[in-house]
């Protein structure tokens, strides 16, 4: 029992695996992400939710240092065990970090594997890059073991298959194996189940959670699916218009949302509640194009609680970046 307490304390005291501070991402002067702060502790599973165009993927790509050529990031992205900032680091330095300290699972399993390489060779390659395995033979064996772990039966046969011989779900299992090959401290998942059909989604999610738990890896899970976040994550950040508008523990954010956007998002996912005409609740309007969000609170043109006060940017309310919100008229909090 004392051991359990000891490990719990160590986990709290250990430095964060990922620390993002003041991240801004811009493309030709159009801001895509503004002032994002986020922290992921060791072994922690954090969700990042938001609609399309809220800046989730851009945040993930800046963490990996994989932003497209004409997109620039400023601010700070630090990984524990890496002695330099990832923002502005050169390609050589980044390639040492990628795949070893931080790995990524992509959305589209149909295109995330090289069609001209056998999948076993692709997984083995991931280990050889960082010399996790001494030679090709060891890497091959380890790759087959890994394919077995992600639930590909006949893993020896699967290792010799080309991607086109596998189904979407099987390919995503290979992509997960590839990402976990070097036991990264942080796994970034960008909507890993969106492209899969519903029955396979649950299997792949289970696989990812088992994989990170077994390796004691932290995870940043990007999705627009609230139900997925609720099952997979411990903490959640809600993004809208390139900003984090609310963050906190999953159970608290989902049961007692404070930002009006989070409230609307959760209201819209409730299929029991209908209005007088029998229609489901929605958030009025649609997400503006990047760069045309209103000044001040980015959500105010779609918010029914908005007042003139909302033309000024709301300050972050809360003890730290992992628990709080940025809203002038929060739900469930008496008016200031």
């Amino acid at each position, binding site marked *: 029992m004392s051991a359990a307490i000891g490990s719990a304390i160590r986990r709290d005291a250990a430095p964060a695996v990922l620390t993002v501070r003041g991240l801004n991402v811009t493309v030709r002067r159009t801001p895509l992400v503004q002032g994002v702060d986020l922290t992921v502790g060791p072994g922690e599973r954090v969700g990042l939710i938001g609609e399309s165009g809220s800046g989730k993927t851009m945040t993930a790509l800046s963490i990996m240092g994989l932003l497209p050529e004409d997109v620039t990031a400023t601010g700070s992205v630090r990984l524990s065990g890496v002695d330099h900032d990832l923002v502005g680091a050169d390609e050589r330095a980044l*390639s040492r970090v990628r795949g070893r300290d931080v790995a990524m699972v992509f959305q589209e399993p149909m295109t995330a594997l*090289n069609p*001209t390489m056998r999948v076993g060779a692709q997984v083995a*390659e991931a280990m050889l890059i960082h010399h996790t395995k001494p030679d090709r033979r060891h890497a091959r064996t380890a790759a087959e073991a890994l394919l077995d772990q992600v639930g590909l039966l006949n893993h020896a046969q699967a290792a010799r298959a*080309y991607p086109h011989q596998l189904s979407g779900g099987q390919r995503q299992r290979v992509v997960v194996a*590839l990402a976990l090959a070097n036991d990264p401290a942080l796994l970034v998942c960008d909507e890993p189940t969106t492209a899969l059909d519903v029955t396979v989604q649950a*299997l792949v999610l289970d696989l990812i959670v088992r994989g990170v738990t077994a390796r004691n890896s932290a995870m940043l899970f990007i999705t627009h699916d609230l139900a997925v976040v609720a099952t997979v994550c411990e903490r959640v950040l809600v993004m809208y218009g390139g900003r984090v508008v609310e963050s906190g523990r999953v159970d608290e954010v989902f049961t007692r949302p404070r930002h009006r956007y989070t409230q609307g998002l959760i209201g819209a996912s409730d299929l029991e509640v209908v209005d007088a005409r029998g229609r489901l609740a929605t958030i009025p309007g649609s997400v503006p194009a990047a760069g045309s969000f209103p000044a001040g609170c980015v959500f105010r043109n779609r918010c029914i609680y908005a007042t003139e006060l909302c033309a000024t940017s709301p300050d972050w309310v809360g003890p730290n970046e992992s628990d709080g919100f940025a809203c002038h008229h929060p739900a469930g909090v008496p008016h200031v």
Partner: protein
Amino acid sequence: MNREEAVVRQPSTGGRRAGLRPNPSVIVGGVVAAGVVMMALVSFVWTPYDPTLVDASQRLLGPSARHWFGTDKFGRDVLSQILMGSRTTLFVGFVAVGVAAVIGVPLGIIAAMTPRRLGELLMRGNDLLLAFPALLLAIMFSAVYGASTLTAMIAIGIASVPSFARVIRSGALQVMGTDYVLAARSAGRRPFAIGVHHVLPNVSSLITVQVSVSFAIAVLAEAALSFLGLGTPPPTPSWGRMLQESQEMLFSAPRLVVFPGLAIALAVLGFNLLGDGLRDRFDPRLEDHR
């Protein structure tokens, strides 16, 4: 662990090609191209006569059982010369296309992988070379370094570099935009390894097509250079020089022009058909996804 969907299809060799209908141009082109290769191979072990044997008593004979294609003004057997000439044609083609591919393919891949502005700059330089007439370049080379098979090969090769670079770059740009390149980068792959392991294999179909098309161009260019006396020097038989030597007898003995002309035309047609057919075959719109 869940193993529901775990039955992996038996990996079959060449599975990617299975189930595709054969393309008529590939077949016709392939047969003609293979025919040229056969001619060259046969010439190593057998020709009806020594193709360089001059025999004044056998001058300008018409086709007969002894000389199937007749003899030329020096009494040399035309069939033997055509067979022997196919060697020159293939040799020049292989080396020229090899030179073009060895320079053009890396150039195209590099131009696709470097930052956009540098890539554009490389391609503008490439366009300059593309705008320069290939034959003129070859004539320049021959004038400077002397007429020889080697000069012809290198000149034709260099003239074919720009089209290689252009085609490969467009394919490589497409590959660079795919998720698996992003995934390879996210796994920590260095640019050089990405170029070799991920980009190159995925543009290999484009390379195959370009090799075949360039080969046709090289065959034609070799014939043109030899015709101008800037290619293969005598006595080595060459289709282009056979044309040139028979030029003055165009009206008295037209068959002397017809046979080498036909050989050139067939070889060019064969490699062109093969290239076109392969291009259709590799067209992503027709690609079988499973």
